[in-house]
């Protein structure tokens, strides 16, 4: 069902945790639906220097979170904003159709974290 790449990100998830005093926080999903992703990012000079996640969800959700946090590191905010669910799924070697919503969640949580950073920036 799952690719080797995905299983690797599930069994050895990268970037698990929460960045203390994160620059941006994004949370998407609902535990009653079975998936919640919380992504925290650190931003320096318009670039994401660190990203961590905590996820409640299935294997695909955890792997997506791991992959998304890997993918964004070192990217500019614009580059990060343009990461699509397809790009995440591809990076994991594909997702079964019924799991595509997980990569959606990952991209959404990331976007929310970036928006949160921007909002805070504006507020400062």
């Amino acid at each position, binding site marked *: 069902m799952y690719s080797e790449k995905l299983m690797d990100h599930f069994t050895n998830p990268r970037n698990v945790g929460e960045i203390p005093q994160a620059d941006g926080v994004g949370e998407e999903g609902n535990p009653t*639906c*079975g998936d*919640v992703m919380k992504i925290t990012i650190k931003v320096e000079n318009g670039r994401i220097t660190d990203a961590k996640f905590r*996820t409640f969800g299935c*294997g695909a*959700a955890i792997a997506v979170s791991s992959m998304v946090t890997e993918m964004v590191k070192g990217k500019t905010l614009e580059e990060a904003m343009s990461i699509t669910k397809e790009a995440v799924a591809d990076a994991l070697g594909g997702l079964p159709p*019924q799991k595509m*919503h997980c990569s959606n969640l990952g991209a959404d949580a990331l976007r929310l974290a970036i928006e949160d950073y921007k909002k805070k920036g504006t507020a400062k």
Partner: protein
Amino acid sequence: MGARYFDYMATNPMRPEVLEAMMPFFRERYGNPLSLYELGQNAKGALEEARSKVAQLVGAKPQEMIFTSSGAEANNFAIKGLAGAHAKKGRHIIVSKMEHHSILNPARALEKEGFAVTFLPVDKNGLVDPAVLEKAITNETSLVSVIHASPEVGTIEPIKELAAIARKNGALFHTDAVASAGYLPLDVEALGVDAMSISAHEFYGPKGAAALYLKGGTRILPLIYGGIQESGRRAGTENIPAIVGMGKAAELTKAELPERARRLAQMRDRLISGVLEKIENVYLTGHPAQRLPGLASFCVAFIEGEAMLLMLAAKGIYAASGSACSSKALKASPVLLSMGVSAQLAQGSIVFSLGVENTGEDIEYALGEFPAAVKRLREISPYAGGWGKVKETDQCIPKN
């Protein structure tokens, strides 16, 4: 396979004796039972011998057993066939909220055809209260169907009491005993049921053979119309190898049941007490005592079922989850929700179903690995410290 299988409710490996019994029917004794030459009559003989063995497993007469291809077919046949044949009595049927999809979904199909369907609620242990049935049943009720035991939470329903209420009200009573056959003694007379579904691959028999017990003289509409097989009630060339295998599996089950159940209950109890002891915030689902031997089912808070399954599978532990990871809607298990389990807790469903090939050592291995897997996933979960601000919502509306 170095793996330890704890998913006997999904399907069983066939017993070697069963395969042995089937072998001659693939290439040598391949005749069609309708053919009158020796090769055909030989197949007919094997068919009827199997029928009588399967009948004995449930205390029925051979002619009361109709072979089908799966438990799902037997259930559809019962629901649609009995409701259809007895619509004159009334167009109301009753099923419980504990039912398998293969009961619920044909019931919903009947609803679309204009039947009224009552879905009986259950208590927190998954029990259907006979008093609730008593209230729901009317003069128009032609059929009541309640699962014998749940493959998801193990609860054994008070079928005898429920069937008596149906009888008193002139309604037929069907029970889905697919998850029970092989684990619990079944006696259609003692239970007082009119119809019962069982499926061979749930008791070490082959896939492709199942049966509907139908009390002598009960009218039913075929689900599969055609020739005169199964006394005109189920058409299609009989799957003789599978049916013969089902006969053998029924015979073995009948003989071994008490000892099997004793062993399984022992292992189940050890697994349940071990899990409850070693893991915090874990809940046994289903009835604490009135449950299938061999079925240990839990909800683990703060993490999700599929992730647990994958984590365990990586350690060679094969279990199941009622969290319906296989369902596209990704909704929490309707059975758990109907028992009042919250939607987020229901996501953490995990079911270990034990079988004859399990050993005490398997249980100890699982008890070693399972807490570690839970710990791991909780480290990843945003809810490690509790559900926090999550509100109970009745339903999950997926975003896309």
